[in-house]
């Protein structure tokens, strides 16, 4: 085998594997991407029931209701719009009323967001970036958050 042939074989194999990888990625991008929305986004964009999204905002004070068998309901707000969220399971350690939260799931026909995942965060002063941006956009960002967020907390796991 000459050098030229070897190079052709190598490049050919490389391109073939790369093509497979690109096909896999495009396919996966079609099925497994989840958009982040604030409650106002959900109201404005008319997100279809059944579409998987991430919903982020603050847990509204006084909205948390614990039902039977680990079922939980609370409202997520960005100051303008509120969306009721239903979840069944154990809440993450840092879940609090008045704190930022990101829930993943889908809306049902009645406007309730059925979450299957509530994202845990490492630190009580940490505000998820998307939530912070969404709050800033809706004008409900308080300097208090910014101040707390500016403190270097968290770690280097």
């Amino acid at each position, binding site marked *: 085998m000459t050098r030229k042939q070897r190079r052709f074989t190598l490049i050919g194999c490389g391109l073939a594997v790369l093509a497979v*990888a690109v096909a*896999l990625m495009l396919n996966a991008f079609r099925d497994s991407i*989840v958009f982040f929305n604030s409650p106002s986004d959900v109201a404005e964009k008319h997100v279809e029931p059944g579409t998987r999204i991430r919903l982020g905002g603050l847990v509204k004070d006084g909205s948390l209701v614990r039902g039977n068998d680990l079922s939980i309901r609370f409202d997520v707000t960005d100051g303008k719009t509120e969306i009721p969220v239903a979840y069944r399971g*154990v809440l993450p350690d840092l879940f609090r009323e008045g704190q930022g939260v990101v829930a993943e799931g889908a809306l049902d026909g009645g406007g309730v967001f059925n979450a299957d995942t509530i994202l845990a965060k490492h630190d009580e002063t940490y505000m998820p970036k998307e939530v912070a941006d969404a709050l800033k956009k809706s004008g409900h960002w308080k300097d208090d958050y910014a101040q707390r967020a500016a403190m270097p907390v968290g*770690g*280097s796991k």
Partner: protein
Amino acid sequence: MIPELGHFALMLALGLALIQGTMPIVGTRTSDPVLMSIAAPAAIAQFVFVAMAFIALAVCYVTSDFSVLNVYENSNSQMPLIYRLTSIWGNHEGSMMLWIAILAFFGALVAAFGNNLPVVLKANALAVQAWIAAAFQLFILATSNPFVRIPDAPFEGRDLTPVLQDPGLAFHPPMLYLGYVGFSIAFSFAIAALIEGRIDAAWARWVRPWALLAWMCLTLGIAGGSYWAYYELGWGGFWFWDPVENASLMPWLAGTALLHSAVVMEKRGALKVWTILLAILTFSLSLIGTFLVRSGVLTSVHAFATDPTRGIFILGILIVFIGGALSLYAWRAPLLKQGGLFAPISREGALVFNNLFLTTACATVFVGTLYPLALEALTGDKISVGPPFFNATFGPLFIPLMAVMPFGPLMGWKRGDLVGAAQRLLAAMVLAGLAVVAASAIERGGPVLAPFGVGIAVFVMAGAVTDIAERTLVLRVPFRTALRRALGLPRSAWGTAFAHFGMGVTLLGIIGVTAWGSERIAEIKPGDHLDIAHYRFTFDGMFNRDGPNYHDAVGRFTVHRMNGELIGNMEPSRRTFPSRNMAITQAALMSRGVSQLYLSLGDPNKDGTVPVRLYFKPQVLMIWLGAAFMFVGGALSLSDRRLRIGAPRPAKAKPNPTLQAAE
């Protein structure tokens, strides 16, 4: 006084790094041996000063000097000594100090032990190493100074984030950084070779031990982080495809490819240009990882809010180093000479296959990790790319790699014998087939493809054993002869077999726990019991226990087998830290062979019931056991005589006495 000394030492280190980064290069350009010889002592001195700065910070932490802002924010005098020490790197500033300390340490190692290196290569490599050091030292001094004082020193510190008050913090970040930063040596050597425009097989032999050491540390660092997240976060996941995890996986994939292509370069002189590129890419991915973690551009469990100037500064470092290195590569790589020829079916071919799949898999992780950033910058849409994406792309690329892995070591160099290799792997294939049948028969439920995954994992393990069996001729020659042959094998052969075997073990663990793990979530009160797999958990009640700086609300559970045999107690807890007024879950784990029972508590309800999560994690320990095998494999390979002794040097021409006499 001590923080100021540390600050000053850091500035001196920066000064030394600037000297180390310029003088030797001038020396190599003007062939001035004096300037070139500055590199090694400068690297050692630079390390001494960085170490002084690091020790100064450590002293502040140990003595709880809360007049230092960084100590005040991340430490507390009530914390045990070990956590006061580890909290040095449990925050942004301190972890950057650890980063440069390790960088300077590696530079000093090359300076101290690189006596067999060609003078020009050593001078250039140490100079490149100094540029990296200078950039990050400047970064710390300009944006992340850990020695800033508070005018009125508070009496007590704010405490370390509770999740980080764990032995995992003592182990995981330093190992990970040893890995990340260790690849800087391969990078510096690659740039030095490009500057010089000359590279030969010996280059691979000099670089390989450093890359191997970095790879070993990175392997343990990733595995340690994975185990930490598994027991700490309370829901028993071992890998989240979190951007920051991906940031550590990418250099690992590229670094694994680098180790393999460097073998081809060393033995056969081929793939030089590619190996250089991999050396650059591996460290570039480490830098990108640092950027992702330190800049806060991505939301992740590791993210902490940081000020944007830091992100921009690191982005600048990233662009200069990666952009500069790749430009230099594009300009100089064509000068490098091509190496030996080989047939597609050969050891070289197998290693190329390995490289192709590893780098492609790395590329999919790269795209999945950075796509959300790119999309947000372009359209403003915020998306998350989660596990489904990576499972659908990374998995299909990794499986063929695993399936081909056992063939590689059985192939000859230049031209291999595929049929012969397959024949020698017959026993391994039969074993894998039996494993598929056994897995389908024993385990019910779970994904249809899982038994085949088990088959591949068993094939990989059996393949590694076959490799050693073939080399020692065990079962074919008398046992004593085989033993002698085994002892006589090069350690690198044992290293390969161990590392490959470990990969199989890890794969088996991942498949076992994802396919056949089970989970129960319930609210229970004392006296209730819960069943999972073939175990019964009885809840005895809650009691309180105090630690040095926390209170535990402990749930006590008695575990029986279904046949009534008592196994033991498990005590998961809710741990409250008064200094931060927050509670975290401390899961309880019980190992049953390589499987584990995993129990964590939620927040107790007012009516006395407690939400619990109970998991049965079959074969989960194999995931990390496999990483330990890989580490041992790396260590064996590192201790190989060939790498210890280094490349042969041409004998120095001795002055000829007879000629002198004739003069």
